[in-house]
C-alpha cells in the first residue's frame, strides 16, 4: 500500500508542476506567443523557478484578516485534492486504495475543497475575496448535483461504486477499446456532463468565476501571496487533474487500451494508456481555456439547474433503458433517440431571445 | 440651415427679452456664435432644441474660456456650447454665455436638463474654470481631486510650488525649486552648485 501512495504523491505532484508549464506553453502557442522559454531549454525548469520564487516571496496577511482561518484555508485547499488521487486506478497493478465506495469517496472529498475557497475568501476581509467566496460556494454546490447524477449512470451500469471495478467493467471488446463507456449513448452524454461538471467544480475556464480576474481581481485568493498562493493554485490544479483522472476512469476506459492486461507488461502498458488519456483531458482543459470566454455567475447556475440537471436525470433513465433492453441494436436506437430528444428540447428551452443571431442595417 | 442672423432673429422672437449678439470666429472658420445673456440662455437653448426648424438635439461640446481683463472689457468667463442636430444632420449652432470672473458671481444656468451630454462637460468646466452651473444635478469636481481648491485652467492660476524636483537642464527651474524649499533630494543642491560654478 505504501508504494502506490508514494507513487501518487510523487508522480502527480510532478504532473502538477509540469501541467502549469504545459498550460503556459500551450496557451502561448494558441495565442501565437512562445510561452516561457527562458529557464532551461524550452523553459523546462520554469516550474522549479516558479516554486522557488513563490517560496521566498514575502507572505502578506492583511491586518484585519482573520489570521487563523486565513492561514488554514490554503492548507485545506490542498488536502482533499491529494486525497482524490487515492481512488484513481492508474494501472491494472497500481491502485493506491481500492475503496468499495470509491466514487462516493471522491465526491465527498472534493466537496471539502469548497470550504477552503470560502475560508480564504471570508478570512481575507476583502470585498472582492468575499464576492469570490460567495461565487465559489454557489457554483460548487450547484455543480455537485448534475455531476453526481452523471456518475450515477455509470454506477448503475457497473453495479458498484468501486473505481477499480468501474475500470474493469470497461475492458474487453475490440482492442480493449470498444467497451469504454464513452462509446455508449448514455456514456457519451455522461462524459460531456461530467466533464462540464468537473470543470466547474475545479473552477476552470469557462467556469472560473470565483477567481474571475477581470471582474473580482483574483476572487478568494486576492489577498494571498507567496507560498499560500501557490498552495491554492496547487490545490486547484491537483483537483482538476484528479477530476480528469476520475473522468478517464469512469468514461474513457480508465487504464484499458490495446495491450493492457493483468501481467507486469500489461500493467505497464495500462499505465501508459492511463497517462495518455489523462494528458488528453488536461490538454482539452487547456484548449478550452484558450478559447472560450467566461460565463456569468447567474448563467452558470441557470445552466446547471436548467440544462445539466434534467439532462443527467434523462441520462439515468437512458441507462435504465440500456439495462433492460438486452437486444443491443434496439437499445442503441432507443437510448440515442431518447437523449437526442431531450437535448433538442432543452436547447429549445434554453435558447431565449438572449442568444440569437442579429441583422444589421446601414445608414441611408 | 439658416444664417446666424436669421437664427438670432427667430430666437429673439421666440424668447422675448433675450439679449442676443453675434460673435464672429476667425475669418476662415466661418463659425459665428450667438452670445446669449445669462438669464435667457436656458430658454434660448430649449427653443433651439425643440423648434422643428432646428432640432438641435446633440450637444456636442461644452467648454469654458477665461478672458482676462483688458482695456475694453472687465474680463469674463465664457461658456461655449456647440450644438448639432442629429435628426436634421445640420449644425453647428454655437451658443456663448458670459459670467463675471469673480468666483462668487461666476454662475450660469446648467443645460444638463436639456442635454445629458452636458453633464460631465459642465462638471469639467466647473472643475477647471470655477463656473457654477445652477441646477446641475451633480456638480462635483471631475478631473481634479475633491480636496483641490483652485481652478487650474484660469489664466491667472499660479501653480503651487510644491512639485518634486525633476532633473531639468533648465537651471532656473531648479533654482526656484530649491528656493521654494520643500523636500529636494541632495542631488538637486549639488546640481545647482555645479550650475552656479559653470
Amino acid at each position, binding site marked *: 500500500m505504501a508504494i502506490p501512495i508514494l507513487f501518487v504523491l510523487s508522480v502527480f505532484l510532478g504532473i502538477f508542476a509540469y501541467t502549469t508549464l504545459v498550460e503556459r506553453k500551450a496557451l502561448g502557442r494558441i495565442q501565437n506567443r512562445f510561452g516561457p522559454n527562458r529557464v532551461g531549454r524550452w523553459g523546462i525548469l520554469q516550474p522549479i523557478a516558479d516554486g522557488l520564487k513563490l517560496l521566498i516571496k514575502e507572505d502578506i496577511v492583511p491586518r484585519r484578516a482573520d489570521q487563523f482561518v486565513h492561514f488554514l484555508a490554503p492548507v485545506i485547499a490542498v488536502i482533499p485534492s491529494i486525497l482524490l488521487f487515492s481512488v484513481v486506478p492508474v494501472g491494472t497493478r497500481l491502485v493506491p486504495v481500492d475503496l468499495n465506495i470509491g466514487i462516493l469517496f471522491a465526491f465527498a472529498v472534493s466537496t471539502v475543497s469548497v470550504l477552503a475557497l470560502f475560508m480564504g475568501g471570508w478570512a481575507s476581509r476583502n470585498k472582492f475575496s468575499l464576492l469570490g467566496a460567495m461565487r465559489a460556494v454557489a457554483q460548487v454546490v450547484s455543480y455537485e448535483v448534475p455531476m453526481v447524477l452523471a456518475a450515477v449512470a455509470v454506477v448503475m451500469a457497473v453495479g458498484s461504486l468501486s473505481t477499480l471495478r468501474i475500470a474493469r467493467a470497461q475492458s474487453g471488446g475490440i482492442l480493449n477499446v470498444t467497451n469504454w463507456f464513452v462509446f455508449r449513448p448514455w456514456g457519451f452524454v455522461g462524459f460531456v456532463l461530467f466533464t462540464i461538471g468537473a470543470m466547474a467544480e475545479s473552477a476552470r475556464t469557462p467556469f472560473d468565476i470565483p477567481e474571475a480576474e477581470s471582474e473580482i481581481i483574483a476572487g478568494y485568493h486576492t489577498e494571498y501571496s507567496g507560498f499560500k498562493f501557490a498552495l491554492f493554485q496547487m490545490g486547484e490544479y491537483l483537483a482538476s487533474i484528479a477530476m480528469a483522472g476520475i473522468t478517464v476512469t469512469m468514461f474513457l476506459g480508465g487504464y484499458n487500451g490495446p495491450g493492457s492486461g493483468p501481467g507486469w507488461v500489461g500493467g505497464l502498458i495500462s499505465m501508459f494508456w492511463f497517462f495518455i488519456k489523462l494528458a488528453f483531458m488536461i490538454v482539452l482543459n487547456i484548449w478550452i481555456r484558450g478559447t472560450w470566454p467566461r*460565463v456569468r455567475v447567474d448563467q452558470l447556475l441557470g445552466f446547471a439547474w436548467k440544462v445539466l440537471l434534467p439532462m443527467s436525470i434523462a441520462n439515468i433513465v437512458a441507462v435504465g433503458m440500456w439495462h433492460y433492453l438486452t437486444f443491443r441494436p434496439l437499445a442503441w436506437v432507443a437510448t440515442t433517440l431518447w437523449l437526442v430528444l431531450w437535448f433538442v428540447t432543452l436547447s429549445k428551452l434554453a435558447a431565449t431571445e438572449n442568444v440569437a443571431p442579429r441583422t444589421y442595417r446601414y445608414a441611408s | 440651415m439658416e444664417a446666424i442672423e436669421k437664427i438670432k432673429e427667430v430666437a429673439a422672437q421666440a424668447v422675448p427679452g433675450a439679449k442676443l449678439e453675434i460673435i464672429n470666429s476667425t475669418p476662415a472658420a466661418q463659425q459665428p456664435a450667438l452670445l446669449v445673456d445669462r438669464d435667457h440662455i436656458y430658454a434660448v437653448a430649449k427653443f433651439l432644441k425643440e423648434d422643428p426648424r432646428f432640432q438641435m438635439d446633440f450637444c456636442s461640446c461644452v467648454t469654458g474660456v477665461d478672458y482676462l481683463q483688458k482695456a475694453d472689457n472687465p474680463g469674463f468667463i465664457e461658456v461655449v456650447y456647440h450644438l448639432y442636430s442629429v435628426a436634421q444632420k445640420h449644425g453647428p449652432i454655437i451658443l456663448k454665455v458670459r459670467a463675471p470672473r469673480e468666483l462668487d458671481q461666476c454662475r450660469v444656468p446648467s443645460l444638463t436638463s436639456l442635454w445629458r451630454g452636458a453633464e460631465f462637460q459642465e462638471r469639467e468646466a466647473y472643475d477647471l474654470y470655477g463656473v457654477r452651473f445652477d441646477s446641475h444635478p451633480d456638480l462635483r469636481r471631475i478631473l481634479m481631486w475633491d480636496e483641490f481648491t483652485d481652478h487650474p485652467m484660469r489664466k491667472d492660476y499660479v501653480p503651487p510650488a510644491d512639485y518634486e524636483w525633476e532633473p531639468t537642464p533648465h537651471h532656473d527651474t531648479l533654482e526656484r525649486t530649491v528656493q521654494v524649499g520643500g523636500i529636494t533630494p541632495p542631488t538637486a543642491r549639488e546640481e545647482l552648485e555645479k550650475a552656479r560654478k559653470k
Partner: protein
Amino acid sequence: MIQPLTEEKQFTRTPGSEGLIETQTLEVSIGPQHPSTHGVFRMDCVLDGETVVALKPVMGYLHRNHEQLAERMAWLGSMPYTDRLDYLNSMSNNWAYALAVEKLAGIKVPEHAEYLRVIMSELTRILNHSCVIGFMLQDLGAWGTPLLYAFRERERILDLFEAVSGSRMMCNYMRFGGVRVDMTSKDLAVAKNIVSRFPRFLDEFEMLLTGNEVLLARMQRIGILPKELAINASISGPMARASGVEYDVRKIDEYGVYGRLDFRVPVGNVGDVYDRYYIRVLEMRESIKILQQALHDIPAGPHVAPEVKLRNFKIPPGDGYGRIEAPKGELGFYLVSDEGGKQPYRYHVRPPSFINLTTLEDMCLGHKVADVVIILGSIDIVLGEVDR
C-alpha cells in the same frame, strides 16, 4: 483601493427590501487598480448581492492638464501631445487637431496629403477596433486569445506607421496643411498588403467570436443604451451607431476626401454590448473598403501645403471648432486664437470616450458585476483621453 471596513458605512439596506429577507448592500470600489478598468479609472459601485444598484465613475487619476500645457506653447508644439490623448489612435488625434487649426487659419490641404490622412486614419480605425474587441473579450475572460490575435495584426500596421512616421504609437505625423513625410511607393505596397490580408484575419476573428454561444449569452441584452438617451447624452461614434443613431461625422461633414469615397455606415438596432461589438466588426469591413479605394485613387502631389510655415505660425484672432470621426467617436478641438496668434489662447479637446462615459451608470444598473466590466469595455475608453 478598498476602504477599511467600517460597519456603519459599509452596509446600507437595499432600497425596497422592506419586509423581505434582510439583505445588505455592499459598497465596492472597482479601481483605480483593477485589471479591467483599462487604466486608472474607478467605479464606485453599490452592490446588492452581485447586482449593481448604483455606480459612479470617478476619473482624473491621469489628469495632466493637457489643455493648459497646450496654451503655453506654439501651435505646432501641441501636435506631439495629441498623440498622448488616445494613445492607441495617435494618427486620428493628429488629424483632428490639424483639421481644427486648418479651419481657423483657412489652410487648403493638398489632395495627396488628404489621401494620406485618410489612409492613416482608417488604418488607425481598424487597429483600434480590433484591439478594443480584444480588450472586451479580455474582460469577458477569454484569457487574452482574441486580444493577442488582434495585436498580431496590429503589429503589421504599427510597423507601417514606424516606417512612415518614425514611431509606432506616438506618430506625430500630421502637420498643418498636410503630413510630415510622404509615403514611399514601398510603404504604399505594404499598406496594400495589410489591407488585402486583413479581411482574412477578420473572418478568423469572427469565426472565433461571433457565433460563440457563451459570448452571445454574455453580450446580448446587456447594457442597453436607448437611441434617445444616446443622442441626448452626446454619445458618438460606434457606441451611438450601435444604439441606432445614424450619425457619422465622415458622412455629415465630409471632411478630408470622405465625400468622394464610397462606404456605408452600419447601424445597430438594440444598442447592447453585442451590437457595440458587431458594429465595430462591420466598421472594420467598411474601413477596408475605404482603404482599398484610397490606396487605388491616391493622386500625386505635394504632401504638405508649401505656404504653411513651421516656425512663427500664426492664426488671426477668433475661435473655431474642428471635429473628425475618430475611432472612439467625435473628436473635436475648440481653439481660440488671441492677438499675436502665436499660441492657442484656449485649446479644448472634446474627448469622445470621456463623454461616452456619461451614461455608464444608466447602462450598468440592474446588471451584475461581471457585466459592468464588459459594458465599460464596450464603451472603449482610453484614460489618456478621458483624463487629459
